[in-house]
């Protein structure tokens, strides 16, 4: 696949897919476009990091970290609970395909391949958690440093 097609798929797919997911968890209407954009941002960071040759876990971490930062900032700006944007930030990088492949391998009795996939998916989930946590920490520091008038 040429790079521009991948980019197009990343932007459109992450936006449309996340808007659908946001509707499923009943995100407040005015937050929906922004949650789509945050998903695009976090997936693009992930994709870009992969393209410049970083490892998969590192890219996942960076993606969810920037998604989390953007999520916390928009939550404060729009006065909407942060969960709304954080869910959107992580949905595109959640290892749905990995978990399915793991089970498919295990079902064919290919235990080694299945375990391999499973461990990858677990690492991905751990990296997402780490990214979200780091984003929350950094945005709390930003808030206390630069916006002390308005805690």
């Amino acid at each position: 696949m040429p790079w521009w097609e991948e980019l197009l798929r990343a932007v459109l797919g992450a936006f449309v897919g996340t808007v659908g997911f946001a509707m499923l968890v009943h995100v407040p209407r005015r937050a929906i476009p922004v949650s789509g954009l945050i998903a695009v941002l976090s997936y693009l960071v992930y994709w870009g990091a992969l393209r410049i040759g970083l490892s998969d876990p590192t890219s996942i971490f960076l993606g969810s970290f920037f998604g989390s930062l953007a999520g916390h900032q928009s939550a404060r700006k729009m006065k909407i609970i942060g969960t709304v944007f954080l869910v959107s930030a992580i949905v595109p990088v959640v290892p749905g395909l990995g978990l399915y492949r793991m089970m498919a391998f295990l079902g064919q009795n290919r235990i080694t391949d299945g375990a391999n996939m499973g461990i990858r998916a677990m690492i991905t989930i751990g990296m997402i958690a780490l990214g979200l946590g780091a984003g929350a920490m950094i945005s709390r520091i930003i808030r206390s440093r630069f916006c002390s008038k308005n805690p």
Partner: protein
Amino acid sequence: MNHIPERAPESPCMEALQLVGRIIMENGGETYRAEETVTRMGNSFGLEDVESFAVPSGLFISYRGQDGNPVTSVKRVRRLHRNLSRVDEANRISRSVETDGMTPEEAVVKLREVESMPGSFRGWWSLPAAFLCACGFAALFGAGWLSIAVAGAVAAVVQAMEMGIARFRNFGLTASVLGGLFTALLPNLLVLAVPSLQTELVVAGAIMPLVPGLAMTNAVQDSMRGDMLSGLSHGVQAILTAFLIAGGALLAVALKRVLMGGGL
């Protein structure tokens, strides 16, 4: 359980606190948010010694009553919905109690409205939502036009089925297994008629609406605040849901083999 008449709470304060905590927890908010909101709202009502303790299955509230004795309530909470606009509204009401001095009576009225609010979209909207979600992610994973459309259709069918199941109050784990089963079964059968279908990508896209994204976020958020009990509980919920969905998908693959006469 509903046939036991509920005794009216001692005061509108307690009723408001119970309502706000329950709304946040039942609709997919974090546990720390429920605790924080209840404590802040209680303090804004002018109550003394307000304490709240929440775990994902229960909410405990206590403050000092007018006679000096503690007033305590214990509420069993069930996770019923995934409805973030209700959580957001409850949060907003607690903020306006704090800043605009809303009285407990007014807060109770408003919170009751939030409790029966339908969410930002009506029920049948979840079908196009699931369709969009699956189409988007199938495209992201690199599927072709046909596979994208099939992924959307499969997700919409499964969503309709889940809505049917939810009516029988079996929401939760059973729904995850069945969702995974049908999400994997339909494309695996369709590929027999349409050999050009990219089964794996279709399943991966169609499974996205079922992914426990909210539970994962809550697990991280609660653990980050040091509430390990709730964080662990949400985390286990997320992982269990993911495994059950994948287990359903596994069943589907096995079922297809049996149907095709290949044995397990």
